[in-house]
């Protein structure tokens, strides 16, 4: 695929100014909530509820809201819970995905095609349809309101299986044959050949499931009712109801909840792009 003819190279970067302006406007709208969050979190509540509103950055700068959030909510507990939960879900999802992806890619067994199409079908199926049956089962098994229960029911590896199958089937079969000749059993083959070679896929699956678990509100509100297990989304909406009139404190809370994930996102950006395009774009 040519990168473009030499003669026309100068034309390549020609862009139209009106559509660029529109693009900048869209980006501004998209970023507006985050901007308001970042500015409002450091303002006294009065500047937010007065008319006209004062959203000038660094004017009347105050740390009171952040202090208030730290003092009056258990934000660190919520953060910790969310991190533990998401980390556990990510690890389990990665493990299941790689195992299943390996067997779908390289091992022949009966009904392989049927099973794989079932996995793909669950990817298209709205996860929320399983909400009620899953809840009822968890309730029967007394897993409701326990960390183990939330972790087990949050695992959704269909996409991961799909992704790792793609990656592993692109590994040359000769590698596995060579490993077998050198005396590797299935388990050795898996841990010494498959896992090291699919580290980028592991990263993508892990990061994606970490974030989707971290931000999942609906399932966590269903499963968690106790105070000590509250995760960040639940805690945040609870805090927002409690501080209904103190908009500045709410925004500070939202900011505290957003910052760790934003940093993580900026660090791991390429995994997201890989994950987003994996199902859609070939080659």
């Amino acid at each position: 695929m040519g990168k473009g003819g030499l003669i026309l190279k100068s034309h390549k970067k020609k862009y139209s100014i009106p559509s660029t302006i529109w693009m900048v406007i869209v980006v501004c709208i998209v970023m507006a909530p985050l901007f308001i969050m970042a500015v409002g979190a450091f303002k006294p509540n009065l500047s937010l509820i007065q008319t006209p509103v004062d959203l000038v950055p660094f004017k009347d700068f105050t740390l009171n809201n952040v202090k208030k959030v730290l003092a009056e909510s258990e934000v660190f507990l919520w953060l910790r819970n969310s991190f533990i939960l998401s980390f556990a879900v990510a690890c389990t999802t990665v493990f299941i995905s790689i195992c299943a992806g390996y067997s779908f890619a390289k091992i022949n067994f009966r009904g392989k095609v049927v099973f794989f199409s079932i996995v793909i079908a669950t990817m298209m199926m709205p996860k929320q349809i399983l909400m009620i049956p899953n809840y009822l089962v968890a309730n029967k098994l007394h897993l409701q309101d326990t960390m183990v229960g939330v972790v087990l029911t949050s695992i959704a590896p269909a996409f991961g299986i799909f992704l790792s199958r793609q990656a592993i089937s692109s590994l040359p079969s000769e590698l596995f044959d060579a490993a077998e000749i050198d005396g590797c059993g299935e388990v050795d083959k898996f841990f010494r050949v498959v896992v090291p070679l699919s580290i980028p896929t592991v990263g993508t699956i892990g990061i994606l499931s970490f974030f989707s678990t971290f931000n999942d509100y609906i399932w966590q509100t269903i499963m968690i009712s106790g105070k000590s297990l509250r995760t960040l989304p639940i805690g945040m909406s609870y805090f927002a109801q409690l501080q209904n009139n103190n908009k500045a404190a709410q925004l500070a809370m939202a900011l505290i909840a957003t910052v760790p994930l934003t940093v993580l996102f900026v660090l791991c950006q390429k995994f997201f792009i890989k994950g987003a395009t994996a199902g859609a774009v070939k080659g």
Partner: protein
Amino acid sequence: MIFSIFYLFPLLYGILVSFTDFRLSGIDFNGLSNYKKIFSNYAFWRSLAGTARYAVIVIPLQMAVPLWIANTLRSHGNKVNVLVKLFIYLPNVTCSVALVIVWNFLFWPNIGLFSRIFDNLGIVGFSFFDNANISIPVISLLIVFSCMGQNVVIFCAAINSIPQTYYEAAELDGAVKFQQFRYITIPFLSSVITYVLVTNSIGALQIFVIPQLMTGGGPNYASSTLLMLIYNSAFGNNQFGYASAIGVLLFILSGIIAVIQFKVTKREAIEY
């Protein structure tokens, strides 16, 4: 392998529950009466209409705006690309509860920022949430703007995989930007567009968190969606059988929509 059982089991169990009068205290088979109850229920029809109204606004915008942004980005340099994608993707990884806090600050009746602006313009007591004709479009726009990133990234990757030579040839033939977009970009992207259309339509059937936290489905189910109805009747009113029946209908509905869209938009993939 064994894993798929864990998916199938809840699904079948859900279908089973939909034929019963399931309360956490006990279980009784009552045949089709849940389904009869659904079709004679005001809330169900309102939520179905609500879901459709969200979908009608969200799906086209969520396709068109990212497609157009990706097309604009094509003629920009690498740095602009990375930066715009980063910014647009950022709300995707922000917890939706945090975003709702900000939007409530803007749209909340009486004390919200926009409500106060309307007050100053002389429209006193204007509320975004009392009237579904206003709240549904507003919430749909918020959903579009916060979930766009994924599609932008997908479309960008797809557009970048189109060989540059086609555009150069078109330019030599005198095709303007729009013609290039219409006759090169769109045909090349048709399979990606189908994929995004299907996943976004299924996504639109599952709109939940943002309306639930902002309007709660009110007034009188006017801005409710099917998923909100499922959630509220199961976990609010302890009607698990009834909620499961709606879940089954939603499942069938998304299946039908996916099949129709694949059939309608299926075209020969272009080889290059």
